[in-house]
């Protein structure tokens, strides 16, 4: 069974190597596209296996857990791998329109595929040190992608992004070292037992906080998010979109995994902190967005505010809340990547992302305007789009706990999100162009428009489908949440599997 788990990681790696060799030829980009399509197939196969068996695990090189490295997929991992592959494919198509040839010959597609491989690996690993390695694979690719193409802005953004992410990695790594020192194991399923039986629970809580800080920087939660708005508006739109969709979610995933599987000994303390962190993240993010007047900067701050909802789902720690968190994660990746795609196309048409310098898109590009409305309203939580159900689950979970304040903040942040989205709508789409010209779609070559439009339409349709037929997705999220809250299946599958 192990190939089911290995393929979603191996396909992008092999594609990266081939795409690197072909980086100077047009074939390179088609190889990348084909690789992304294959990844989607591989992740769909994994999803089917997980749907049939609940939890799938494999021991690498036939070393039994907890000694070897385990790859394991439960519902949460599987859906994250699938959504990564979908975003990857959408991005690979979008890149055909945006990435210039010079950047391609620098190995853009190879780096992109390595990034996807790193993200997928982080979702599938069942070993803590291996998780660190996947984080690094993802990071080094993201560093290069962020600064590829050069220029002062990108280098400036790159330096801040790299510096803060390296510090967070070191905090995470020393957490791993200390946890190994206390428990003597690094296998996540094995850690659950070992951490529960550890003598010094105070020390465990300290280590838990190190993990919270390390993953918190990656996820961009409240006091640790400053690298994100400093960097996400500078690279190519293709890259912003894939970063916005996937990278912070790896941090959220890691938080969800560790704080449901391993660090559950002192929920009253750790998850209480997470609640406040989440609320502050939601609020500061949305307030930060209100102060911006650049398409991508507004969207970047909204990533932060939305991350708060996902961590809130984890922090409330009830089945319904976690279900909402998982649903939110999936919905958000689709919507956020799509909004960055729209921003890129808007720039192609109107010439800038500074909202004060563009306008008139509604008149000249009504299709794009319609395609912006779908993810934007979904982000704000309008029924019947996907974001409505995600927010509904979280708010309902808060109300069930009689946590009125939390429910109030969630709804308030939703309201403020509408404010920012209408700002983009009013300034980029409705207002006439300040230069008195009509931004015409003809300004971009047909090939470019087509390559950029396909992923936008595809992701917008997914948002609508999730919005109108939420039932199967909600049920899936429910099972995922049940598995997270009661990981006995996860633990027995990992520790009991014979190679």
């Amino acid at each position, binding site marked *: 069974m192990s190939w089911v788990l290995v393929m979603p990681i191996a396909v992008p790696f092999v594609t990266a190597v081939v795409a690197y060799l072909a980086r100077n030829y047009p074939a390179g980009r088609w190889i990348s596209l084909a690789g992304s399509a294959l990844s989607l197939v591989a992740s769909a196969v994994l999803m089917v296996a997980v749907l049939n068996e609940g939890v799938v695990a494999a021991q690498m090189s036939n070393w039994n857990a907890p000694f070897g490295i385990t790859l394991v997929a439960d519902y949460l991992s599987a859906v994250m791998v699938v959504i990564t592959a979908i975003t990857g494919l959408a991005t690979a198509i979008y890149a055909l329109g945006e990435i210039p040839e010079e950047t391609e010959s620098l190995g853009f597609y190879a780096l992109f595929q390595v990034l996807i491989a790193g993200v997928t690996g982080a979702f599938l690993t069942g070993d803590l040190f291996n998780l660190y390695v996947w984080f690094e694979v993802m990071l080094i690719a993201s*560093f290069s992608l962020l*600064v590829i193409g050069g220029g002062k802005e990108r*280098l*400036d953004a790159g330096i801040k992004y790299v*510096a803060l992410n390296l510090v967070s990695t*070191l905090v995470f*790594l020393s957490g791993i*070292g*200390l946890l190994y020192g206390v428990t003597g194991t690094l296998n996540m399923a094995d850690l659950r037992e070992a951490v529960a039986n550890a003598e010094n629970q105070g020390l465990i809580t300290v280590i838990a906080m190190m993990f919270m800080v390390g993953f918190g920087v990656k996820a961009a939660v409240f006091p640790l998010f400053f690298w994100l708005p400093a960097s996400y508006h500078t690279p190519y739109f293709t890259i912003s979109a894939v970063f916005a969709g996937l990278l912070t979610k790896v941090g959220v995933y890691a938080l969800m995994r560790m704080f449901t599987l391993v660090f559950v000994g002192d929920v009253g303390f750790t998850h209480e902190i997470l609640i406040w962190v989440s609320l502050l993240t939601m609020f500061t993010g949305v307030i930060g967005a209100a102060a*911006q007047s650049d398409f991508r900067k507004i969207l970047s701050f909204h990533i932060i505010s939305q991350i708060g909802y996902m961590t809130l789902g984890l922090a409330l720690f009830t089945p319904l809340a976690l279900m909402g968190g998982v649903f939110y994660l999936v919905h958000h990746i689709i919507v956020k990547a799509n909004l960055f795609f729209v921003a890129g196309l808007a720039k192609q048409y109107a010439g800038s992302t500074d909202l004060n310098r563009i306008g008139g898109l509604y008149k000249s590009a009504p299709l794009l305007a319609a395609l912006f409305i779908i993810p934007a309203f979904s982000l704000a939580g309008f029924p019947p789009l996907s974001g409505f159900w995600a927010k509904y689950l979280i708010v309902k979970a808060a109300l069930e706990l009689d946590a009125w304040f939390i429910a109030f903040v969630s709804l308030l942040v939703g309201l403020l999100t509408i404010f920012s989205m209408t700002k983009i709508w009013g300034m980029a789409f409705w207002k006439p162009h300040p230069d008195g010209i009509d931004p015409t779609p003809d300004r971009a070559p047909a090939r470019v428009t087509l390559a950029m439009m396909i992923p936008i339409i595809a992701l917008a349709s997914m948002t609508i489908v999730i919005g109108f037929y939420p039932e199967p997705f909600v049920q899936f999220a429910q099972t995922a949440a049940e598995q997270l809250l009661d990981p006995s299946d996860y633990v027995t599958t990992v520790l009991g599997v014979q190679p």
Partner: protein
Amino acid sequence: MEALTAIVIGVLTAGSVYLMLARNFMRFLFGLILLSNAVNLTIFASGRMTKGAPALVPYGEDAPLGIVGNALPQALVLTAIVIGFGLLAFTLALAFEGYRRMNTVDTDEMRFAEPKEDVTK
């Protein structure tokens, strides 16, 4: 032995935090290098230290005899060193390229991606 290592880790961490608080990006990087070494030592020490007992399996045996050093942290540290080395090499190159383009290593003056002060109108 662990106590001595712990003190060394503490000193390294203190020094690295001092360096990382500087505005000069190069000093920050040196701090990062120190911190990365402190973390590597932490992993190494967390596997407990055994003096003069290499983790070797004698010829003809299936497992090491008696007490040997813990080999796992050594493998982890080796991995962490290699990864850390790669990342630092990249970051140094980035710092150099950043210096060439922006003409500064003072992080307060690196305000190209973000506004210098509040300029939202």
